[in-house]
């Protein structure tokens, strides 16, 4: 019934949707609706992104010239620490699963909600609590350890008072992440409707599932690690600090045992989004569904076995370095498979160069660079030179920002009409995407050159020979920021002045495009019909509605089957 409504040209959304279902601030703060929780996550994550982005811009501005430019060394150290810690723990890790994932996962699956709606809300409030502790850490004197919290600097070396607070924040945020992951795993196992077999699930769900496994299995380790760190700093109990009988390299093992899989907690959902975007916006069946699905699982498994590649110069034994280098290269294979399968999906497609697709194509370009430069860092002989230089900074920004966040922004544009019921300006969308793409490359490609020339990371001051690269990088960051500010402007404008979105503006086949935009409170009035979610031949364009609907010459419509 719902979908029949959606196929009719409707200037105003008919009746009830999740935004109008109940009203008042409490109906949001106490909601158990996965869509509203997703929206609350989205607003919170984007706010954190804004804050940490400002910190990043301040870091770049300080580095526009050698010596002191705008802040002193201690302030600079606080800024890059907060930029990293907020971006990782408050933005990228929860970005795709907890915001977009929360919104679309149950609808894509054909379910009314996640398996544990209360746990879902609790997980959001844990995120908020973690954020409050992070703000508390700033108020208590800040943190200057870098987001890696390496000991003994973080336990006995720094005089800044925020370390224990920020460790508590990470601990709490970890539980938020664990609960989200567990909720999604159970939802995918238990709430698939009839017809939604594992191999009919959209690849985004496979990616979220693989991510959930990582969240549940890896995150407890960071919780234990920061707890031990706090105990050592507060009570002087020797675990990591050699002057107390501890081992600082042990901390690095613990830290990366989580933080390497965390890289995949960030990138796997992004890859899932790209699989959807590339297929839907080229109206072409995804190429090699099973290879992509299994490569997500393969990446999840391999990612547990490669943490030591962050520690090639840490003084861990050479034999371990060799083993970790070897296993590291195994992660390259499933990543390469995905890229080639996406390219093959484009082949003979009907490629729409709209904003979400431009972000998806940017992802291919940027992940190409981010992934391939991983080869330089996984290789022992070259990593010794490149480790802890700007080459590493550039590499992980290409992966975490150029890939994970760009995919998230692409997904946001893809699902924006569904979430808000409004269309944004395509013109400004493409302009902003172009600015972000160009600005990003100017900012971070320059840093590969800086790094291979030997510029160490986390430097407040630098030798004059590096100046020109820093100037270029900083200018690039301003261009990128301009792109993001334009994005914020037209997205906010669309909420009030945007054209009403049809149910299916892009011609997507997965189930979320079968309900209205925005979806009703219960997602589906009747059990939706599950078909091949990448078969676009059953849809046709409706000029009046400016969207797609089921072909009239076909026997039955989705939802009736």
């Amino acid at each position, binding site marked *: 019934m719902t979908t029949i409504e959606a196929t009719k040209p409707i200037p105003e959304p008919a009746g009830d949707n999740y935004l109008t279902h109940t009203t008042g601030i409490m109906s949001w703060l106490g909601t158990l609706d996965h869509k509203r929780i997703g929206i609350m996550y989205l607003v919170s994550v984007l706010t954190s992104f804004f804050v940490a982005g400002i910190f990043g811009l301040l870091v770049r501005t300080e580095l526009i010239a050698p010596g002191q430019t705008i802040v002193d*060394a201690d302030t600079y150290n606080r800024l890059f620490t907060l930029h990293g810690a907020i971006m990782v723990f408050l933005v990228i890790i929860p970005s795709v699963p907890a915001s977009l994932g929360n919104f679309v996962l149950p609808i894509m699956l054909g379910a009314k909600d996640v398996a544990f709606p209360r746990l879902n809300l609790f997980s959001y409030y844990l995120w908020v609590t973690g954020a409050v502790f992070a703000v508390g850490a700033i108020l208590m004197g800040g943190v200057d350890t870098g987001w890696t919290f390496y000991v003994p600097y973080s336990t006995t070396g720094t005089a800044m008072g925020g370390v224990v607070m920020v460790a508590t924040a990470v601990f709490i945020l970890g539980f938020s992440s664990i609960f989200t992951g567990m909720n999604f795993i159970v939802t995918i196992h238990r709430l698939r409707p009839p017809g939604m077999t594992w191999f009919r699930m959209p690849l985004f769900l496979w990616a979220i599932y693989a991510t959930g496994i990582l969240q549940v299995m890896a995150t407890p380790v960071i919780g234990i690690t920061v707890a031990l760190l706090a105990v050592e700093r507060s009570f002087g109990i020797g675990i990591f600090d050699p002057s107390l009988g501890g081992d600082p390299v042990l901390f690095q093992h613990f830290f990366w045992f989580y933080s390497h899989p965390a890289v995949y907690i960030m990138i796997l959902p992004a890859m899932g989004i790209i699989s959807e975007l590339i297929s839907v916006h080229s109206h072409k069946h995804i*190429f*090699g569904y099973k290879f992509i699905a299994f490569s997500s699982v393969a990446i999840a498994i391999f990612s547990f076995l490669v943490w030591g590649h962050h520690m090639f110069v840490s003084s861990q034994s050479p034999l371990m370095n*060799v083993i970790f280098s070897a296993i590291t290269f195994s992660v390259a294979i499933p990543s390469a498979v995905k890229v080639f399968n996406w390219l093959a999906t484009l082949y003979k497609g009907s490629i*729409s160069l709209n904003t979400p697709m431009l972000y998806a194509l940017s992802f291919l*370009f940027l992940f190409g660079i981010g992934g391939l430069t991983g080869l330089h860092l996984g*290789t022992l002989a070259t990593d010794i030179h490149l480790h802890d230089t700007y080459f590493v900074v550039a590499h992980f920004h290409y992966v975490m920002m150029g890939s994970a966040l760009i995919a998230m922004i692409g997904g946001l544009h893809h699902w924006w009409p569904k979430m808000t019921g409004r269309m944004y300006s395509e013109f400004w969308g493409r302009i902003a995407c172009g600015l972000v793409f160009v600005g990003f490359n100017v900012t971070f490609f320059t840093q590969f050159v800086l790094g291979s020339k030997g510029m160490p990371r986390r430097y407040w001051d630098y030798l004059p020979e590096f100046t020109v690269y820093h100037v270029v990088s900083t200018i690039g960051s301003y261009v990128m920021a301009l792109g993001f500010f334009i994005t914020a402007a037209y997205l906010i404008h669309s909420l009030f002045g945007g054209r009403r979105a049809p149910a299916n503006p892009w011609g997507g086949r997965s189930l979320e495009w079968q309900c209205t935009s925005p979806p009703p409170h219960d997602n589906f009035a009747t059990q939706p019909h599950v078909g091949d979610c990448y078969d676009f*031949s059953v849809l046709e364009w409706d000029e009046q509605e400016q969207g797609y609907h089921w072909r009239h010459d076909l026997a039955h419509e989705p939802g009736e089957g």
Partner: protein
Amino acid sequence: MTFDLCLPAILATAGQRPGSIFGMPEQASTIAGPIDLIYDIITWISLFFFVLIVVLMVYFMIKYRRTSHVANTGGLTHHTPLEVTWTVIPLILVIVIFYVGLKGYVHLTTPPENAYEIKATGQRWFWTFNYPNGATETNILHVPKDWPVKITMRSDDVLHALFIPAFRVKQDVVPGKKTHLWFEATRTGEFDLFCAEYCGTQHSLMIGKTIVYDQDEFEAVIDDLARWIDQVPDDKLHLAGALSYNQCLSCHTLDGSQMIGPSFKETYDLFKSGGTRTLADGSRVTVNEEYLRKSILQPLGEIAADSATGAAYPSSMPTGIGTQLGPRKVESMVQFIMRLDEVAPDGKLLEVKKEDIVVKPSESE
């Protein structure tokens, strides 16, 4: 220990090549050429795949761009032989890359038996290098050309990392254990030396120089380094202190401005006036010669409080300075502070040259 990846041609040109075309710095060690070769091989492979991906992507974007809303029908949904192909080809390539990287790494971690050994200490925020003949130098690493050098490193506080880009070597310095790196310099000259592991406020100022000499000259340099302080007459010892001040300057200023530790100017003024200094625990101590000596040898014994705010200074002064410097250099530092008005009038350090204050044995007789 062979390293058959070092093609003779590379070895022959190592030292003259300006580094890789992909942005590596100048090459000044035997390993730099082979590592740049590996770097170039990986970069070429990466470039090939990157160009392949982008060219295909852009070609498809143009060729298959949407021209009408007619739904797309069909197209290949999978092709197993093709997918196996693009799984296996990258697999073979990464095995090759791993192998060449391994060969280079084995070379990097295997110092020759006859290597010349130098001890290095990383402390916030300077490097100290100790030579077998007793010579000590701060932030400058003197090494011979064409002779393998092994650096044994330790830290007295937090993690640091010794990084010499021109040699392509880097190793973390870890408190509680000894770590090593080795290289064989191929060119004379000065090369940058960095701390690469974040260590706090002045991390980016924990930098220095590596100076490579011909072997004869190197012998003379470290010989002089070991003995010059003994050749400074007592009445010029405060000037010798000026030459050791570079390891104090990241925390102690000469002009009275506050940094991580009390300014030497403030300490000097207290010494001159016979005044007392308030300590972190509230007690007061007279600033005399004995206090100055004790503060260098046992820096964590009496932590001073900031005269303006009353807050304690951080307990971050390295404890090993006394041993590294030796008694006479410690004495020179004590004299340096006691006669600060002569060495640094108005907070500006005099330019002191070693040869001006050293009296060679023959001259004194």
